[in-house]
């Protein structure tokens, strides 16, 4: 069905970005923030309307989406790219998360950035980010998705480097941008494969290719499927911060905390997983790549969790926790359950945004000190922030009946069903580490005595900042009820939504577990997580310096397992050297030579010609006679 309201979802934040960035420059945080928040709320309003329209549709799964045809972007040969917006059920959930949490974070930012010099810049970028992210999720064609994909990368770069006067911030921005560019190559290759082998970039038609027997028998090489899935996975590892391209995300914490909450936890970093969920029927054609996603996710979940347990900066803990949770989502994809992955995307968006905003509130109260060794005892001074942070922590470790409990339990159950006990135990280990480092962070921030004068003078933030926290805390508690395990009754909204966005292309989920197995898994996970959380809480109350990992693991962990150094040594230095070499032979020798040569040639010929320039009219006349008779003579001889 055609619904023309979709374009306003996109245009509202775009308009807000232009208004703040171009027309209303140099306004205070209140004015810029108000404009940006309004733009975001308008987008949210239209999203709600669009979603209610979508849920009102009762047609066959093949037509169960809204479409807003805008214009033809390119048309050349059999490459036809229309700029259409399309709302499927999976997109609608994402849409509500982006605009809803986005609006909350806009509101929060008004207060958070009230003392900044140029808040209009921040709000303009933030709105631009929303617009780009909405293009990413609403686009119906992979080429248009790529536009949004690049757009969010750009906004991420701009916002990480928002405090551009500190060189390490701009360096972090560049690192994020370059790492994402490395991943974008994968996206481009997938795009080329789609256009040249599947003959379309349209996501719905791509999905139909899987069931199109005439097409399948027309001889598409197997490697085309593998290349498509593999390069898409490569692109997702960059955007969604997985091994080996996760290195940019922890550094991205240099940006303001609302940015970390919105872009680097809730929305942008999940876009890789979201994209794979959308093209899942094609992706699942390559079982090897699906297995690769499983192991990439598993190792990332472990590595990031191992780093998180020793970090001292509260935002760094949350950043590595994000990487680790994204690993969980990849594991779910690898276990053949995009629904579980997408469910975790949604719940994670809520509780991780909450945790980041709560951490931001703490940082704001501590006068921009982020070291946990300086905090302590904040639970009495920042009561609301404390409760919200606690709820976020409980949700992420999977406290029974919170959001994280259902989504993580679903992933664990799917992994148990698909990969057996071994995969389950591995993933459970990562989940237990989550409980350990999250309660470490929570206890170090809020319990014990104040460990610095900043902590003693800390104060609760104003309502503009804690109201979004309360809303997100509410979501973190209850959003998990969208999808219940079978033993809790048959309520599977997320699975239905994810499956219905494949345009009727059915992909079977694997074997179900028995009820007893489900209960047992749930019990084991919860009891172990809560035990670890309890011990972590007790130990860090008594000894804030406690090391979870034995030496030398602890030392490696504090140094992030030397991954950055390895990259520096193996990739960055050699490519810098290669770059300098190419610069020397191409730029300095060849091109400079050409440029200087043409200049020297002109100068020399000028000097030579100047010799004829005597000023004597008769010399000129002689030249004229001589050369013209030469030319005429030559022509005469030629035609003879």
């Amino acid at each position, binding site marked *: 069905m055609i619904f023309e309201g979709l374009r306003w979802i996109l245009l509202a934040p775009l308009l807000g970005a232009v208004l703040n960035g171009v027309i209303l420059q140099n306004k205070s945080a209140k004015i810029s923030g108000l404009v940006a928040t309004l733009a975001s709320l308008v987008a949210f309003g239209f999203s709600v309307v669009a979603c209610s329209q979508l849920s009102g549709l009762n047609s066959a799964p093949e037509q169960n989406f809204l479409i807003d045809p805008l214009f033809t972007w390119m048309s050349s040969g059999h490459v036809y790219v229309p700029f259409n917006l399309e709302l499927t059920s999976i997109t609608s959930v994402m849409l509500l998360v982006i605009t809803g949490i986005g609006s909350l974070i806009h509101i929060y930012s008004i207060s958070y950035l009230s003392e900044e010099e140029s808040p209009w810049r921040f709000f303009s970028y933030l709105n631009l980010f929303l617009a780009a992210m909405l293009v990413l999720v609403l686009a119906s064609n992979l080429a248009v998705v790529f536009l949004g994909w690049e757009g969010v990368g750009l906004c991420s770069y701009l916002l990480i480097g928002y405090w551009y006067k500190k060189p390490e911030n701009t360096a972090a921005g560049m690192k994020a941008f370059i790492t994402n560019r490395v991943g974008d190559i994968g996206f481009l290759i997938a795009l080329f494969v789609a256009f040249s082998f599947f003959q379309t970039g349209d996501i719905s038609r791509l999905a139909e290719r899987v069931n199109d027997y005439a097409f399948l028998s027309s001889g598409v090489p197997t490697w085309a499927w593998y290349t498509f899935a593999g390069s898409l996975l490569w692109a997702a590892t960059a955007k969604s911060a997985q091994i080996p391209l996760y290195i940019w995300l922890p550094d991205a914490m240099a940006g303001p905390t609302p940015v970390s909450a919105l872009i680097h936890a809730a929305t942008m970093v999940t876009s890789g997983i979201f994209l794979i969920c959308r093209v899942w029927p094609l992706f699942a054609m390559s079982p090897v790549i699906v297995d690769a996603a499983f192991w990439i996710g598993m190792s990332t979940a472990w590595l990031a969790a191992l780093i998180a347990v020793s970090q001292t900066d509260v935002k760094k803990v949350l950043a590595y926790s994000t990487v680790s949770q994204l690993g969980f989502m990849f594991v779910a994809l690898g276990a053949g359950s995009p629904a579980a992955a997408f469910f975790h995307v949604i719940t994670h968006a809520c509780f991780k945004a909450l945790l980041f905003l709560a951490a931001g509130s703490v940082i704001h109260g501590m006068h921009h000190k982020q070291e946990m060794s300086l905090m302590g005892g904040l639970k009495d001074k920042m009561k609301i922030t404390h409760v919200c942070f606690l709820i976020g922590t409980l949700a992420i470790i999977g406290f029974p009946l919170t959001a994280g409990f259902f989504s993580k339990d679903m992933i664990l159950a799917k992994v148990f069903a698909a990969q057996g006990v071994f995969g389950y135990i591995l993933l459970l280990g990562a989940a237990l580490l989550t409980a350990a480092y999250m309660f470490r962070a929570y206890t170090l921030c809020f319990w014990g005595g104040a460990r610095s004068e900043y902590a003693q003078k800390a104060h609760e933030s104003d309502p503009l900042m804690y109201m979004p926290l309360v809303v997100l805390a509410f979501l973190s508690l209850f959003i998990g009820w969208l999808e219940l395990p079978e033993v809790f009754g048959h309520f599977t909204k997320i699975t239905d939504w994810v499956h219905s966005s494949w345009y009727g292309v059915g992909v079977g989920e694997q074997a179900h577990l028995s009820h007893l197995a489900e209960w047992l898994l749930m019990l084991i996970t919860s009891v172990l997580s809560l035990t670890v959380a309890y011990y972590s809480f007790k130990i860090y109350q008594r000894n804030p310096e406690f090391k979870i990992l034995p030496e030398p693991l602890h030392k490696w962990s504090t140094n992030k397992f030397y991954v950055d150094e390895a990259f520096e040594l193996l990739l960055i230095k050699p490519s810098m050297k290669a770059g300098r070499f190419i610069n020397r032979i191409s730029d300095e020798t060849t091109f400079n030579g050409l440029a200087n040569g043409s200049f020297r040639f002109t100068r020399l010929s000028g000097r030579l010609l100047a010799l004829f320039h005597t000023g004597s009219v*008769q010399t000129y006349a002689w030249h004229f006679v001589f050369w013209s008779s030469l030319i005429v003579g030559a022509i005469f001889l030629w035609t003879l």
Partner: protein
Amino acid sequence: MISLPVGELEFHVFVSIALFAIGAYGFLCKRSGLIALMCLELMLNGVNLFLMTFSKHHSSPDGASLFLFIVLVAAAEAAIALSIFVILSRRFGSVVLDDYRRLKG
């Protein structure tokens, strides 16, 4: 029109080439600007004679009409050139072409 008698054509061509050659020699070699100017006119008239000769020879009005244009332009050119020489001779006190070398800038 009646074409030229046999032998007349060669004579006319010879005269016009001679006029042109004398004009060219004078223009290239004489030091005085006024003589150079006169030689210029001589060259033009050599060409004019050439044109008229062949116009007559081919019984075609093309050469004759071109001749009229050239006379017209030559008259204008002579007027401008002479006035330039009046100004130059006031400024440099001479009409010798070699004295104008510093006009090259």
